[in-house]
């Protein structure tokens, strides 16, 4: 019995000694994680930091003349610059977008614009610009001018009577969006997407539509 207790005491002491040892090892090795993600502060490997924030260049998406009729649209490319963990460090990435003339004016979903420190000149318009990066898993979705093509090519979704107009649809997992939904532009009609696509903030200068910023969030 006494022998057993002595063993227990020894085991307890081993335990007690091992805890700070393990803690020390963890503390020592955590900065080594920076090997995988070098441009962050020590101990901050977990969260994306200021160094990861992407920046972009304003670009002319279309002119107002090009979007004269309802459902006119233009594809454009917005260039983002973001850090990459290669010896070169930075990489530019194209964010494809689509700018659409809607048949009626709607309130633009631009609540995010103020959070990035910009002030929109207007909040209602019949022109809207979406990032074509699907908010589901990041494929590039298409603007489909004819809804029948959505039914035939994107898994057999048939839109209800009031939504039989141009739609947006993703080839990867068949999410389908309605760009003209007045309450929530880009509303998900079908498929696994968790939210509407992200939008671009644009300004209008002398008849040209200038895309300034893309809604942050998600992995490009």
């Amino acid at each position, binding site marked *: 019995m006494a022998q057993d207790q002595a063993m227990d005491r020894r085991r307890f002491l081993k335990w007690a000694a091992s805890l700070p040892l393990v803690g020390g090892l963890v503390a020592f090795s955590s900065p080594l994680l920076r090997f995988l993600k070098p441009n962050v502060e020590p101990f901050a490997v*977990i*969260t994306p930091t200021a160094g990861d924030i992407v920046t972009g260049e304003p670009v002319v998406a279309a002119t107002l003349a090009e979007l004269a009729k309802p459902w006119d649209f233009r594809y454009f490319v917005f260039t983002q610059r973001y850090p990459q963990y290669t010896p070169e460090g930075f990489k530019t990435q194209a964010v494809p977008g689509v700018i659409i003339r809607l048949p009626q004016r709607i309130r633009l979903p631009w609540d995010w614009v103020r959070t990035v420190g910009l002030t929109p000149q207007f909040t209602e318009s019949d022109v809207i610009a979406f990032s074509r990066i699907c908010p589901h898993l990041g*494929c590039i979705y298409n603007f489909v001018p004819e809804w029948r093509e959505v039914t035939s090519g994107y898994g057999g979704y048939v839109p209800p009577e009031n939504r039989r107009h141009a739609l947006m649809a993703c*080839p*990867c997992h068949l999410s389908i969006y309605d760009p003209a939904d007045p309450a929530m532009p880009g509303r998900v009609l079908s498929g696994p997407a968790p939210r509407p696509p992200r939008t671009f903030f644009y300004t209008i200068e002398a008849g040209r539509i200038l895309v300034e910023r893309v809604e942050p969030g998600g*992995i490009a």
Partner: protein
Amino acid sequence: MSTMLANLQEWYRDRRAKLDLFDETLVDRQANPLFLLGPMLYYFWIVTVVSGVVLMFWYEPTPTGAYNSILRIQHDIPFGWLWRGMHKYAADGLIITIILRIYRMYFLGEYKKPGELSWIWAFAGLVLAMISGITGYLLIWNQRAFWAAKTVLTVPVFFDELTAKIPVIGEQFQVGSMIAYLFLGGPAVGAATLTRFYALHFGISLVLLIVAEVFFFRTRRRRLNMSLFPVLLFTAMLVVTSYVLPAELGRRADPNRTPLPILSDWYFLALYQYVKYTPPLWAGLGPGLLIGFGMLVPFLDRGKGRRPLERPFFFVVGLLALVYFLVFTALIMFNIAVIEREPPLVLLTTILVLSGALVWEVRYRRRQAQAPPAPPPRPARAEAHT
């Protein structure tokens, strides 16, 4: 506490002594090709590794050079098509044999005592082979590869929805994004991703090769328990397939255009269809739970019976998994996914079938309890060589 630890150690030592990585203990039953799957697994794996090393001589892991270097391997370099075909088709053979072997082990109850550890290794092998597969096919840098890498590595980002629920540190503790960043080497698929995938693709096999060698060295078992005829047959199959059906290249990756329709490699198709059906958080959790279930099966199925009909519930679960794998693969190949209609149907079928299986299990057990005890079954497998 200490007796529990001792028991655990004894349990582990016992299973390790009976460990069977490539069916070495089932050599005398090889008249049935189901028991040749282990040696086949080893054979296809070694062919994949060797041909992969040969391909590394010519492959260039950069976004601008990758596709061109593979074009050269396929068309310019003497016998490049052969090495590439061998690599691709041996890898396909590897996945097929792992899947068939897992189903064999499942339906014959080989994961039961003392096969628990062998099962866990087999299942981990499947997961690692699939990771090796997806990191490998990005290296071609074609459309299929590019979009597969992109979608797969966006899945973990949705885990942040879960960790955000942790009080206080939740907002900062974005494990999902961290996982994605570490694999991508940045917020998007790029040069860094290619390098990291290249390292993983080769690294997984390298580490497993060392593990297997340690196993063979310590157990003194033969490496390839297969006679010459099947070896020649499979080699001929690989060579003929690479010649008749050259490994395809697809289109060069274009980050600005997702093709319609787009498919993944064949063994991911069922998972791909599943991802269409579920919200994105479940696209990650579902497969995670499936892997967890697979790993824990030996500890969940505590019954003594090894034959399928002696454990109805787990038999039905296995059948259901097989049927879903085949049906989902068929559906996605015909591009059928009506997302309003199918997920409720699938859910309903699953619930009905599983509750039916549960009823069957309960009735079976009740009948067993009433019936006189059956004579002990003969041992299902031979003793391990020592």
